[in-house]
């Protein structure tokens, strides 16, 4: 199959525009989930209704497909009179689902810190917030970097599903080009390559962060 240079020259600028939307979705989702997931994980660690609600949330969002969550947000909210744009709906659905996954990552990290560390902090007069901020969370964060990076890669790929609600991210742009040109292989190979570049940036960034945050243990 000969490579059509002229076709690629027209395709790439369009794909890069779509990639920009992909990056926006992925970066916003990661940034929000890093915080939101921690809130859910700390909520789940408490006793009572808050812990129960956090646990139920995690179960529901992890155990249903992203696509369904996205449809519910996109079509459901407009039915009840709160229409959101495709981008906002996609972002919200991505954050809802990945917030559950990230909360589970934090939960694992929190459980890996020995109860003796909590005792040592409390014995020194630390109250809950000081204890978490200076003793527990720094240890948790160092340990959750690798699984968080993994989740970041997964999020980046999951943004492709937002194409289903007509957001012009890279996958939707590709679909449009495939339909108009019938040049399926060139388009999807190019798209795959761009995803690979984006996820590689996350992998490398995580390695660097891991090394920076590692303490001798």
């Amino acid at each position, binding site marked *: 199959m000969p490579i059509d240079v002229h076709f690629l020259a027209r395709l790439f600028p369009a794909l890069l525009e779509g990639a920009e939307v992909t990056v926006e979705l992925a970066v916003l989702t990661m940034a929000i989930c890093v915080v939101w997931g921690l809130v859910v994980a700390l909520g789940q660690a408490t006793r009572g209704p808050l812990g129960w609600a956090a646990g139920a949330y995690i179960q529901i969002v992890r155990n249903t497909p992203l696509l369904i969550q996205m449809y519910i947000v996109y079509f459901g909210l407009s039915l009840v009179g709160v229409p959101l744009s495709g981008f906002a709906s996609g972002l919200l659905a991505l954050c809802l689902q990945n917030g559950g996954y990230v909360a589970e990552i934090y939960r694992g990290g929190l459980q890996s810190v*020995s109860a*003796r*560390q909590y*005792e*040592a*902090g*409390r*014995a*020194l*007069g*630390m*109250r*809950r917030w*000081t204890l978490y901020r*200076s*003793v527990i969370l*720094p*240890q948790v964060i*160092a340990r959750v970097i690798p699984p968080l990076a993994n989740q970041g890669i997964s999020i980046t790929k999951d943004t492709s599903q937002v194409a289903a609600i007509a957001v012009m991210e890279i996958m939707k742009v590709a679909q449009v080009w495939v339909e108009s040109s019938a040049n399926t292989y060139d388009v999807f190979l190019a798209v795959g390559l761009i995803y690979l570049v984006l996820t590689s940036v996350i992998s490398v960034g995580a390695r660097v962060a891991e090394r920076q945050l590692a*303490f*001798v*243990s």
Partner: protein
Amino acid sequence: MNAESSLATDVTSPRPMLDMSGIVKRFGANEVLRGVSLQVARGETVVVIGPSGSGKTTLLRCVNLLEDYQQGTVAVDGEPVGYVMDRGGQRQRMAEREIAAAREKIGIVFQSYNLFPHMTVLQNIVAAPIRVRGIPRPKAEQRARDLLAMVGLSEKADAYPARLSGGQQQRVAIARALAMDPKIMLFDEVTSALDPELVGEVLAAMQQLARDGMTMIVVTHEMSFARDVADRVVFMDGGVIVEQGAPEEMFASPRTDRVRQFLKRYNDRYRI
């Protein structure tokens, strides 16, 4: 001595530094402390001995409420820790903020060191003074370096705990507890996890502390430490204090069979 100076140094105060009264602790149906009362005078070193499961570690952990208890009260230097009695004679739990404040005055050193692994030795020592007591960093670090010098670890200030031997980690843990200027120090089998050749350096630091007038409760299996350093030895078994007294008396002529048997087993095991 005139009245004024005795007030200033407070050595003649009849109020004990630690006053534990009627402590009852249950794990489910299992009563591990059956109404234990213990008073420790200012500057006194009390060594608690007894067989495993006798409740001595639990008693120590009740002092700063790392272990909750179902009956009884604790006061350090006259200030309640954990519970206060209301007018109707009912025990009321203090607010978490008040409990945290009370814990600042009670240093504890654990069997397993429990240093913060993500902090250097110096950071371990200054963390609570800075973040709990609000002491300015330069002042906290100066104090930390003084304490490190005292336990013989000045050159390890910037090392991470994982790079230290068990004995060195335990001496850092002692320095970390002392950095809060506690009124009393609790030692929970602090040499039990150490290789035999490292036990001496930790006991030496504790002995120095006792000599400097720190009020201490030491739960240990080191009978030689009890004999040489304790002002008073407390023997616990089955969740009660069975016998207590000066070390020379208790080791030479125990009054109860249980202490006699315990010491005999100990001597048989360690006779060379």
